[in-house]
């Protein structure tokens, strides 16, 4: 049951009625029932795994909290986290590793073990974070099984995140009996905005991307460059679209999930980019992997820092799945991050000493960072390392070996018309203007106080464009992770 299906619309409507008609003390159970019903529509065996993990995590947290000796707490926490990592490894990495980072080994039929259950990485990361928080005594173990089960299975977040922290969720969970009608409206608006980004912008860009990425050798340098830009923009519109839908759905039930994006393509350098892109995953990895690792390696100075950054970035890459392209994506970003971190002080000093050049830095920094990310996304999007390298080589006019003129720009061949492309550029500019405006108190206030006719006209226009753009099958890029 996809978020964009008619079945989900009916499920949501029935769920909202049940939730708001229930006595307040039943609401968590209603929401838990909805979450399990939603999850079991994808896979029943997967639901059994989710319930088993939840039970194990519930008991482990209680045991960790109940021990007084530090070594005993540490041993229990280590066993529990290792167990969860093992589940992740077996279901997501096990079979692919048997084929050495390739597709399913020949002769093995598709089966339950070959398909990672939906949302596995998301709910296991939530579970690991919760256990470590209990071990580090930054939050108590949950007494209520329902609260923990709802945290791990919460249906708006289980498909593609965001990865909400346990403390933040449980604080809001305690106030489920006091729904906020304003937040409900904000939620509906977020869902509409997310669907617009996905259906109107991301899927249209996807038409061009699917064409250029399927056989790079058949396109000119300029066409491939356009395809590479469009993939980065598609990924952003798609992933931030599903995040908006997830946050909006959560708000309908009184739970505000964490933000995942903060104008990432305007980041001044690669370090800032990774603080603004998939923020719930990167901040999770910072707290539970990078900082402990960096603390353990701090005696090694620069080597320790570089090692911690590289391991962290490889983890970000391989979190998406066991493919060499994801490993390359992580490793290249790791190199960029290390160079950036080691030279940041010197760069700051240089621009302090050369004040007139600082103006150039304000626009050249984001431009360079965007292009570095477009480059790494070529690896992220490719089916194989070979295809990624072919794509990179085919972009470079000096070394490409085809008879196609390097600067040709044939729109019909790329799958969309120039008018559609220009409309998409306008749509992307509007999307970023809305992202920027939503952060400004002034513009937020101006929008809310605008005449009702204008606001509702905008909503209906968006819905109309959405309906006209909708296709029969739509999947989100990040739903596969």
């Amino acid at each position: 049951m996809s978020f964009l299906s008619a079945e989900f619309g009916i499920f949501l409507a029935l769920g909202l009625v049940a939730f708001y008609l229930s006595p307040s003390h039943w609401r968590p159970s209603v929401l838990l029932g909805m979450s399990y019903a939603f999850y079991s529509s994808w896979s029943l065996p997967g639901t059994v795994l989710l319930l088993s993990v939840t039970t194990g995590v519930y008991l482990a947290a209680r045991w960790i909290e109940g021990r007084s000796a530090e070594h005993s707490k540490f041993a229990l926490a280590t066993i529990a986290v290792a167990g969860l990592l093992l589940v992740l490894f077996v279901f997501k990495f096990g079979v692919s590793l048997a084929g050495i980072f390739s597709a399913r080994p020949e002769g093995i039929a598709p089966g339950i073990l070959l398909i990672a259950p939906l949302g596995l990485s998301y709910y296991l990361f939530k579970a690991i974070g919760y256990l470590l928080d209990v071990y580090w005594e930054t939050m108590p173990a949950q007494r209520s099984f329902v609260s923990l089960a709802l945290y791990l299975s919460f249906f708006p977040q289980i498909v593609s995140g965001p990865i909400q922290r346990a403390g933040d969720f449980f604080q809001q969970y305690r106030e489920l009996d006091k729904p906020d009608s304003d937040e409900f409206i904000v939620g509906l608006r977020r869902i509409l905005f997310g669907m617009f980004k996905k259906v109107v912008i991301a899927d249209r860009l996807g038409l061009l991307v699917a064409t250029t990425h399927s056989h790079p050798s058949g396109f000119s340098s300029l066409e491939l460059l356009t395809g590479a830009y469009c993939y980065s923009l598609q990924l952003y519109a798609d992933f931030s679209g599903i995040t908006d839908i997830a946050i909006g759905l959560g708000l309908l039930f009184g739970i505000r999930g964490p933000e995942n994006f903060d104008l990432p393509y305007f980041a001044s350098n690669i370090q800032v980019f990774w603080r603004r892109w998939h923020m719930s995953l990167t901040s999770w990895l910072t707290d539970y992997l990078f900082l402990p690792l960096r603390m353990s390696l701090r005696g090694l100075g620069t080597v320790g820092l570089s090692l911690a950054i590289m391991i962290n970035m490889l983890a970000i890459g391989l979190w998406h799945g066991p493919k060499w392209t994801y490993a390359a994506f992580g490793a290249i970003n790791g190199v960029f991050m290390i160079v950036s971190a080691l030279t940041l002080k010197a760069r700051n000093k240089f621009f302090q000493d050369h004040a007139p050049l600082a103006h150039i830095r304000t626009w050249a920094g984001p431009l360079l960072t965007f292009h570095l990310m477009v480059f790494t996304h070529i690896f992220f999007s490719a089916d194989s390392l070979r295809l990624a390298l072919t794509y990179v080589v085919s972009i470079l006019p000096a070394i490409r070996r085809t008879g196609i003129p390097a600067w040709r720009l044939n729109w019909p061949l790329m799958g969309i018309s120039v008018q559609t492309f220009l409309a998409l550029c306008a749509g992307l500019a509007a999307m970023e203007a809305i992202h920027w405006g939503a952060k400004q108190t002034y513009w937020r206030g101006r929008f809310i106080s605008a005449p009702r006719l204008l606001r509702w006209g905008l909503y209906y226009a968006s819905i109309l464009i959405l309906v006209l753009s909708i296709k029969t099958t739509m999947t989100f890029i990040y739903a596969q992770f």
Partner: protein
Amino acid sequence: MTKTDIQRQLTTVFRDVFDDPRLELNDSTTAQDVENWDSITHVDLIGAVEKSFGIRFTVKDIRGLTNVGDFIRLIASLVK
């Protein structure tokens, strides 16, 4: 060491790590208030504080820190 002594010495460490001789700290100062205080410089800061005060932090120690006030209390509990 008194709280004032710790805060004074800590301010010197912060100014050195963040390369800002005018940096001022108070109990409610957080990473949001100090330019370039991110996850990478955070451990540089931890290392510099350890060296300056002759103490050693664990991951568990630094997990609970939310502001400079917490940091000062943690240092006070570790210095002899």
